[in-house]
């Protein structure tokens, strides 16, 4: 799930306002965008990219390793299922507020066709200095720079802040993996942790979690076998119990998914858990045994 420059990327919904804006940003940054999908405009080209009627046609004509969708919620399931059927290996679902039963159908199709879904409700992935897929500010030099810290985040905005703080401290990133804020994700914190653990370009791992669900706890189990330094920040310590905080996944009932439970599990897994985002970079630096260049 670390995107590379060689990966052939197709953009679903490329001709819309956001699809256009972000495709141009992706191409300018170095992403290998080989096609866009819009059944009504097949045969044309848009922002210099050929348009196809379906992901299957794009896959046949130009190849499609990765698909990323700028698709409104009512159409998201159909687009995702078609992409899985077309054989894309990685499907990045940016859309928020997809009906939950549609999300389940997407995951079923992905499992059937061997497609990995990242999301829904993810901001995407960044491989600094190489390429990005999604809606992250990879191109803002104060936020991302190439390096050896892998970052996993449920939130795009908070993930941006964390990368900004790392960059300011002189700690570049090997990969940013936005896993998404939905309750039913294709790629979990644990999955992303495993990928970064196995990535030769990653020396330290930052987990940016949130209250709700059991993903941080599951990742904490895996963390026990990870030798690389790991630092986590969990958002939502001050959130009132039982209230949905935007991300449907961030709801705490009883003790399941609570801040205290996640913190305890991660610490037991050998992860350094910090109280504020500004403490992440110093903790990573300490884990790596390097000096940071910015203030603590």
């Amino acid at each position, binding site marked *: 799930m670390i995107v590379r420059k060689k990966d052939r990327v197709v953009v679903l919904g490329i001709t819309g306002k*956001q699809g256009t804006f972000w495709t141009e940003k992706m191409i300018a940054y170095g992403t290998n965008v080989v096609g866009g999908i819009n059944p009504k405009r097949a045969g044309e080209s848009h922002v210099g990219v050929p348009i196809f009627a379906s992901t299957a046609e794009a896959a046949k004509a130009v190849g499609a390793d990765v698909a990323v969708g700028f698709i409104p*919620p*009512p159409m998201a399931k159909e687009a995702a299922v078609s992409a899985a059927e077309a054989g894309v290996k990685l499907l990045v679902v*940016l859309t*928020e*507020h*997809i*009906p*939950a*039963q549609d*999300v*389940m*159908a997407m*995951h*079923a199709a992905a499992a059937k066709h061997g497609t990995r879904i990242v999301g829904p409700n993810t*901001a995407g992935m960044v491989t600094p200095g190489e390429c990005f897929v999604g*809606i*992250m*500010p990879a191109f*803002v030099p*104060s*936020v991302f720079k190439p390096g050896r810290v892998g970052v996993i*985040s*449920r*939130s*795009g*905005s*908070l*993930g*941006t*802040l964390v990368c*900004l703080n790392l960059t300011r401290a002189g700690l570049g990133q090997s990969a940013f993996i936005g896993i998404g*804020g939905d*309750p*039913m994700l294709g790629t979990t914190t644990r999955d992303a942790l495993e990928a970064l653990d196995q990535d030769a370009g990653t020396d330290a791992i930052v987990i*940016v979690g*949130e*209250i709700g*669900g*059991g993903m941080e706890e599951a990742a904490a189990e895996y963390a026990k076998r990870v030798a690389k330094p790991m630092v986590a*920040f969990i*958002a*939502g*310590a*001050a*959130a*009132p119990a039982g*209230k*949905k*905080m*935007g*991300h*449907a996944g*961030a709801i705490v009932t*009883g003790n399941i998914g609570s801040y205290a439970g996640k913190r305890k599990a991660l610490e037991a897994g050998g992860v350094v858990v910090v*109280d*504020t*985002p*500004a403490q992440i970079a110093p903790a990573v630096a300490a884990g790596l045994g390097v000096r940071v260049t910015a203030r603590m």
Partner: protein
Amino acid sequence: MNFEEHAAKSLILHQAGIPIPRGILCKTADEAAQAAQEIGPCVVKAQVPTGKRGKAGGIKLANTPQEAQQVAAQILGMRIGDYTVERLLIEEQARIVREFYLAVLHDTAARKPLILFSTEGGMDIEEVAAAKPGAIRRLPVDIDNVPRARDIAGMLEGLDLGAAEQQIAQIVDNLYRAYRTRDAELLEINPLALLGDGRVVALDCKFVLDDSSVFRQGDIAGAGSAPPMTDLERRGAEAGLKLIQLDGNVGVLANGAGLTMTTMDVIRHYGGTPANFLEIGGEAYTKSEIALDLVLSNPGVKSLVINFCGAFARTDVMADGVVKAWHKLKPKVPVFFSIHGTGEVEAVKLVKDELGIEPYDFMEDAIQAAVKAAQ
């Protein structure tokens, strides 16, 4: 979105062919008496979209119209949870032989639907799960299919259901179909009761509609219950913004749920208290103008943190909305900015030029200053 029992029963269960008791919805004690006249010995049930109605005294038996009137007068106007009782369901009394629990819901970890059945009906399933975990049968279902008859039979096997088993199996099948066609997040019958006359009937029903599916469930969504909201929260909802009013004094305007929660956490970390949760992330990032109005309208706010970290949300667009609202509202409380990410150069310049305010380099510094100013 939650539904009251009467709505769940008539719109979901009855439509799905699942037997429910005869019942009449009433708004006054006189109507309740009239309904009892028609129905006979009855149960008077408070209609609020929350659990624990029985424990709160919101469900009572009445054997005569006079009793129904008295009981109805007691229950109407009662507070249960965050709700005031304004409606009653008058239902025929049932002679219960056995009580079961049946539900269809999302198994979020497995990412597929799950049917739960238990012979320990009538109590909270969380309590059953804690006290007798073995008493809950689970049947995961492939979202692209319906449960197979033999899988349902397998789930019910060995529970000594006798003649009721056929009826229950049919109800399981019908309930699953209703869960699918109605985009339920949770569809629960508790208790599902075997009556003295041999019928199996749904005595109570909880239906939660997936909020993301409201667009395609328009014919029933209007019957759902609005969550309890403050006036300010309602104004937010009307503007399409999720606002939660809290009892602190540091206002929060940030983009994205994760960053907003983090801003609240850091306010607490420095000894302050957040006055609200308000998210303008996703497509809502263009609504910063109304958002600023909302957070400043909260009477408890003594200072405000504006914390933007743009990924999809462009900070220049958000800052522009803030500046526009600022000129109209002329905030009386001190405001502290931190702006980073997509569009940051334009956004910072805009705030400096238009408002004469220098955004902080570190979010923590902006928050610390806001906490201090609020004290």
